[in-house]
């Protein structure tokens, strides 16, 4: 196995962790998913064709690691402790933080399929075509799924805004 592949994977780790954080329910699960994916990638490095996109391949392995190994045992419950959303807007910092937490919580309420497209396109910033390749779905499916995921996310977030008023 070449060191350059290891180096290339290492360079992707921050993006892979960010993506994993957006599709899992817990940050430790997210890192477990990435760790499993890195190990799988190295044992299957022969399957990767040099010259093809390493990031698409790695994101796909991360997605599969979540679906195959971690999802069933993920500690979703811990994050759905009774929720008391912040009401006041004390200052800009508090508001920015509350917004960030609200988005993470809303994302966790989306379906698996929706979280995946949001994680790839909105969180990672991947072009539709690459995201469709990672998910192994046609472009049209990616687009309609992404539109529905955004609708659901928007609805969850505007519920929160309404409750504040």
């Amino acid at each position, binding site marked *: 196995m070449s060191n350059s592949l290891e180096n290339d994977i290492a360079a992707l780790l921050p993006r892979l962790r960010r993506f994993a954080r957006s599709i899992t329910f817990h940050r430790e699960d997210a890192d477990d998913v990435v760790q499993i994916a*890195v190990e799988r990638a190295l044992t299957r490095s022969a399957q990767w064709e040099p010259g093809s996109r390493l990031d698409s391949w790695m994101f796909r392995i991360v997605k599969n690691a979540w679906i195959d190994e971690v999802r069933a045992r993920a500690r979703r419950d811990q994050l759905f402790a009774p929720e008391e959303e912040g009401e006041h807007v004390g*200052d800009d*910092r508090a508001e920015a933080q509350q917004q960030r937490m609200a988005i993470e919580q809303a994302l966790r309420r989306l379906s698996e399929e929706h979280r995946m497209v949001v994680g790839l396109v909105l969180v990672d910033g991947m072009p539709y075509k690459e995201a469709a390749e990672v998910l192994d779905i046609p472009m049209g499916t990616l687009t309609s799924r992404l539109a529905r995921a955004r609708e659901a996310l928007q609805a969850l977030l505007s519920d929160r805004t309404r409750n504040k008023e």
Partner: protein
Amino acid sequence: MSFSDETLMAYADGELEPALAARVEEAMRADPRVEEAVRRHRALRADVFAAFAGVLDEPVPERLQPGAAPATAAEPATKPVSAPVAGAGAATVHSLEARRAARQAQAARPEPVRPRWGALAASLAVGVLAGALGWQAFDNAGQAPFGRRGGAMVAQGELADALSQRLAAEPAQADAVRLGVSFRDRDGAYCRSFMLGTTGGFACRQGGEWRIPVMAQAEQAQAGAYRQAGSAMPAAVLDAIDQRIAGGTLDAPAERAARDRGWPGGK
């Protein structure tokens, strides 16, 4: 001419070919509703992106590095774990159960693991921080805002008063303390985030004091759309709050009730 929501979304994401994009832009000029739909797509995208952007700046745990040996990869790098985790080499590396057992063994230890930022903050001399982080103003006003009790950093003076008494919704006072969110940590203690000048942190009520597990200097405001003018809560502090928070943040009535009861709970 009308466009589907999917098309407007694709435009907002920069995914349309130039000719179609130009027609969408024409429609946006003609119809404020189209413009608004595009704006909402862009805003949601930007908000979601911003919510996770900080992960890129976090140090990557050693165990994730491709070069990490499989045996050590199954254990947290920070401490020896007594649970039978990694004995069988590569076969166990993929076992999430083992990894989780290792973490639970870690969690069961009597001494809680201090987040690395906490260790960092506690290891810095208060005097150095006071100079470096711009607390000089407090020297004139009376007691310094931070002290130490047996290795832990605690709030005192005006900062402690503000944490104990002031609600986040109250208008800013003349001092430099700004209160952020209040929440309960996993031990049941009440915690509050604060900014003091350009220093951000949070304090948890323990043993009648406000202990400060994490504190960091805010980055200067960025030019991007997601930073208001002024300094923002440092990402390390936000992450540490994420790790400690149980449930959500307190709303205003809950915060008031906790204050009125003297922030009970914790150890």
